């Protein structure tokens, strides 16, 4: 099971790399959010995948699942949510001001009118 999720997260990170290297800004942002999904899957796998109970102290339960990776992923998801939202706003602003969503055209020093 771990092998499958690791391969899946590898595929996600690879496709994110492809998207980040493309020229359209929107694709870069989609790539960045896919990258974060791949990374989150990675963290989940690193905490060992197993069927366990909720990690609340209970005498009748003996196998617990590790709560820490889940807490980490929750935090990371919140952060990547904020980042994606902000980069979308920035993309819109960029498009309005610079008049392009092509990274090829975002070189040099543009002058303010």
């Amino acid at each position: 099971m771990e092998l499958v999720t690791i391969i899946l997260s590898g595929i996600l990170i690879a496709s994110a790399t492809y998207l980040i290297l493309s020229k359209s800004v929107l694709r870069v942002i989609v790539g960045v959010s896919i990258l974060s999904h791949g990374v989150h899957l990675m963290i989940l796998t690193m905490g060992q995948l197993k069927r366990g109970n909720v990690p609340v102290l209970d005498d009748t339960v003996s196998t617990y699942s590790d709560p820490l990776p889940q807490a980490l992923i929750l935090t990371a998801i919140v952060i990547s949510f904020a980042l994606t939202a902000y980069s979308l706003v920035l993309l819109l602003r960029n498009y309005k001001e610079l008049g392009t969503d092509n990274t090829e055209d975002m070189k040099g020093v543009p002058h303010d009118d």
Partner: protein
Amino acid sequence: MKSTLKRAGYNKVQRQMNDVFIQFTSKVIFLIILLFSVNLFLAGHYTPGGGFVGGLLAASAIILLLMAYDYETVKKMIPVNFHLMISLGLALAIVVPTLLFLFGAPFFTHQHTYVTVPVFGEVALHTAVIFDVGVFLTVAGTSLLIVTLVGGTEK
């Protein structure tokens, strides 16, 4: 985004005016989603849920209204200042843990007590709920602000 749409083959972006169905159903669904978000928020104490999910769900309820109606109408329906929502949420999220310091325990150590209320019986009161209200308000306010900004309805 217009040129991107043009390249994709759309000649003009059309806005449908006679959207009776979505307007009617969204009014009903809006309340259900909002109630479910409150349910998730309160469930967060012992089971999955909490301020973040609840806030996102509440925001999505209002976003549904925004899709069905336009910005001005929704503003009239729900006269809430998103900036104020974020400020209030952040204030709750920082002031509550700071005040908890007065109990002599480290920062963020929440306090709780049990109160017997006539109808409901014994009810747990927990300071973490106030903190979570802050999270709820911040998340809902931020996502609504960003959606209205990206939607271009608010300058």
